[in-house]
């Protein structure tokens, strides 16, 4: 499984909404690689019953006790989670790049492009970034 699998960014390639329940250590590694490449939050279901939602920014699958690191949505500091503690991975957050390709932008009608640009501008203005 390589990064390139997930980089077409076409709507059809998005994992948004999918849930993986790995049955083996190899499947966990594979699912976590997908989650590492994903451009949105995921929700991890842990063996202890806890669910953790956040953005996976790092993983060490070659470590003697493999782990991933994520920024939980509701916490400032990153959290480290062992692969062996993970039961399921759900791609719950919005895929932030999906459907936003250059081709999609260019192919839109002028009115659609203008509306989208205005929406982004309004958000930036509301947050004080303009």
């Amino acid at each position: 499984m390589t990064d390139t699998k997930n980089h077409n960014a076409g709507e059809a390639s998005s994992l948004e909404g999918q849930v993986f329940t790995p049955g083996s250590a190899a499947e966990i590694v594979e699912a976590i690689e997908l989650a590492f490449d994903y451009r949105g939050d995921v929700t991890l279901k842990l063996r202890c019953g806890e669910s953790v939602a956040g953005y996976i920014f790092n993983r060490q699958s070659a470590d003697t006790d493999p782990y991933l690191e994520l920024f939980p949505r509701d916490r400032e500091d990153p959290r480290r989670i062992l692969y062996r503690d993970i039961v399921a991975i759900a791609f719950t957050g919005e895929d932030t790049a999906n459907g936003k390709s250059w081709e999609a932008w260019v192919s839109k009608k002028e009115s659609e492009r203008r509306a989208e640009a205005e929406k982004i501008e309004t958000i930036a203005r509301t947050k004080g970034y303009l």
Partner: protein
Amino acid sequence: MAVPISQMYTVATYVLSQKFKGVKRYPLVLMLEPLFRCNLACAGCGKIQYPDHILDKRLTPEQCWAAAEECGAPMVSIPGGEPLIHPEIATIVQGLVDRKKYIYLCTNAILLERKLDEYKPSKYLTFSVHMDGLKDEHDLAVCRDGVYDVAVKAIKAAVKRGHRVTTNTTLFDDANPERVRKFFDEMMALGVEGMTISPGYSYQKAPDQQHFLKRTRTQELFSKILAQPKSGWQFNQSPLFLDFLMGQRQYQCTPWGNPTYNVFGWQKPCYLLQEGYVKTFRELMESTEWDHYGTGRNEKCADCMVHCGYEASAVEDTFSTVSGFARTAKLTLLPTSR
């Protein structure tokens, strides 16, 4: 001359000192990303494809200064995101100036004119304004009308106040060489110190994967653009890197040349590829399998000719070979001799 002599001297003595010390791999430019949040949403940019809670994270000034000291590179490029959104960016910049780092503060310039009062002109500080072409091309590239005009106004204001200003331009596969040459004329007429150019960045997470330049197309395009350069054009980058873009020199990538630090840590292996993060610069240098990256070594690197991988290779060539040094000297003194 686009780059001031003091900066050239600093970089030259740094590179030579690394060579005398026998350091095989050394950083040249720290890529410091203090945030990913931007006030634009360009289709070609892969740096903003994160959930909101990640876009809201910021490096502190102390983290930025510590990264610069730990890395030791003489130059610091501050991309993003849009750095001028960071509420403490002026403090960060001043701290880096105090450390005598040559800073390229990259900005789309939407906020630049409004924030100019926060910065004192310094030989260490350059505003590197993102300009992807003439008005039509630029506004299309950044997905918002009117940004070109705002940026031009901000460039004029910054130049008038005595700041060092350069432009940074990413060229995509639909670039028209004649329009790009005209764009160079317009930028130099604004009074910028120099321009930097690079082919499109093939970010893994960029949504626009089909639009980036392939290697042969890159060489053809840059050959057309840079052949018979005009005397008024100044480029704020290694002339050998421009040779490389034109296909006149062959280089292997130097991924450690522009190490990247951001809210996730030190990024492995380079500014473009995100294969993981480590907590220290030393760990980055010692634990990255450098030989796995570069043209012919990794499929992800096959078509990359981006400055963050190859400009350090060009600088290395300047200081390692007689032909490289002679060519650099010739093109620096006589840029139209290309």
